[in-house]
């Protein structure tokens, strides 16, 4: 297995790629909020060139394409780099999955332009963006020294198991982002997104509460619980603000800064909420052992070396 030292640089590169991806999410949200999705009618070139006049909506749409090109390039480098230095087969393949996702994402982006923003494709484009962000973040986590260091497994007692609740919360958050994207791209109204908000808020409070209750002596999980609380509170406020700004801005002949700002921040904070639930899920699998599960069997099922007792090695 590669040592943490071997992976230090690729980990840094993965974190850099994740940061650029977050920037790309902001750029994509700016395109939608400024109603600039079709300001460049052609694809993959923009007005038949690589650098069109960056005025009006073209600034947002072509800027988004330029950052997407950067992230695509970074993803190629990351996939190749992982393949060369990473000894864990599944991490190598995760790099390939990320590359496949970013290629699919580019194609979906092109299709939205060529088919005049059909809601299903636009919503799929928005959703895959968030999944790609989570994939790159996961690669960052898996290549980190923290993940690879041997750590004691903490027993998880009670119902539901923290694993199940974390997976359910991450899944519900993903569904909520799909509903949000579908609303934003006019596939349907706000009601499903509001119902999703109630469900996700409940699950996140439940998950964060159980993390603090059962894993009070595990700093990583305690910190993630605090982050979940902060993010969901912020996201609810932003959601209310974004909704108000949409109604308020309807009387104006063009998108206004307060609406653009609030809707963009709400969108990318949604991505952060999803990413945090995914990180919580991975951390729970890394640190918590379901009560009743044999430690050896659990460790073996997760790919660590056989024979360890209360410690689980790097996956």
């Amino acid at each position, binding site marked *: 297995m590669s040592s943490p030292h071997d992976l230090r640089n690729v980990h840094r590169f993965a974190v850099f790629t994740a940061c650029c991806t977050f920037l790309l999410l902001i750029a994509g949200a700016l395109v939608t909020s*400024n*109603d*600039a*999705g*079709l*300001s*460049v*009618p*052609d*694809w*993959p*070139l923009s*007005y038949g060139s690589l650098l*069109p*006049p960056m*005025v*009006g*909506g*073209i*600034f947002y*749409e072509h800027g988004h394409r330029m950052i997407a090109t950067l992230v695509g390039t970074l993803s*190629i480098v990351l*996939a*190749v780099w992982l*393949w060369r230095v990473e000894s864990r087969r599944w991490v*190598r393949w995760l790099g*390939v999955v990320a*590359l*496949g996702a970013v*290629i699919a994402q*580019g*194609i979906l982006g*092109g*299709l939205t*332009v*060529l088919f*005049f923003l059909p809601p299903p494709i636009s919503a799929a484009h928005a959703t895959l963006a968030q999944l790609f962000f989570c994939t790159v973040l996961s690669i960052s986590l898996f290549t980190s020294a923290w993940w690879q260091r041997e750590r004691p497994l903490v027993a998880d007692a009670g119902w539901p198991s923290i694993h199940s609740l974390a997976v359910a919360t991450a899944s519900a958050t993903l569904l909520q982002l799909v509903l949000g994207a579908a609303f934003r791209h006019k596939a349907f109204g706000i009601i499903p997104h509001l119902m999703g908000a109630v469900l996700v808020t409940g699950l996140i409070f439940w998950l964060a509460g159980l993390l603090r209750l059962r894993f009070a002596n595990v700093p990583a999980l305690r910190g993630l619980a605090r982050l979940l609380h902060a993010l969901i509170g912020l996201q609810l406020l932003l959601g209310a603000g974004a909704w108000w700004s949409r109604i308020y801005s309807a*009387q*104006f*002949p*063009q*998108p206004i800064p307060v609406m653009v700002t609030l809707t963009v921040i709400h969108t990318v904070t949604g991505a952060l909420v999803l990413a945090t639930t995914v990180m919580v899920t991975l951390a729970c699998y890394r640190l918590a052992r379901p009560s009743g599960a044999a430690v050896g069997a659990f460790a073996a099922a997760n790919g660590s070396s056989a024979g360890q007792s209360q410690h689980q090695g790097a996956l």
Partner: protein
Amino acid sequence: MKAKPVILIAAAIGFAVAMISCGSNSTPTAEQPAATATGGGTPVDPATAGTVTGSIKLDGTPPKMKVINMAAEPACAKIHASAPAMTQDVIPGDGGTLQNVVVYLKGDFSQYKLDVPTAPAEIDQKGCQYEPHVLALMTNQPLSVVNSDMTTHNIHPVPKNNREWNESQPPGSAPIMQTFAREEVAVPVKCNVHPWMKAYIAVVGSPYFSVSGKDGSFTIKNVPPGTYTVSAWHESYGTQEQMVTVGAKESKAVTLTFKVAAASD
């Protein structure tokens, strides 16, 4: 073993390149060649044809026009430096009238051979606004889109019954020629580069249409004798209709009134 991902990555990139090559936006063509006439009957006899004239009234206080902020487009902001550009969705005319209302006749014209105008209807992009704001043309009549601005626009009609298209038009480029094959009152048109730019193109199945002018008046000429529905459409106030019977060589005047509080279509 190590060759597999390389092949996979190469295949993925190859697929992406292939998609890019295939997906390139070529210049769209017009929906179908413009017909020169519609209907299989006889031409309208000018000796018996009448006229429908009238006025569009607005009942109530019209909403104030809003200032458009063109800071994002310096070329156009400069044009409106002395007087800011305003929205054009409700433009009252003199004496309580209303401009930019599409007025057209609904009826059975199947017995007549109706010539499709060969002269294109023109819409211009000037100062990052459409001119005119509301345009009417006949199905399959050529539409000419002109760009008089020193900036790039995209022209993007969003029809429900016709083919959607979206074309870019850099400054100084030739007019874009298009047609609409099916009747639709009215097709919203927008420029995504400049999100405040909005216009409407009414596509009418007969040549019997007009758009109310600055005094709210309209005139529809060469109408064959018969009974018709005069339909008036406004982007904010929806549709008003009235029946009219036109006799031989007769000129009929109608007045249609929109209420400010009326719900829009």
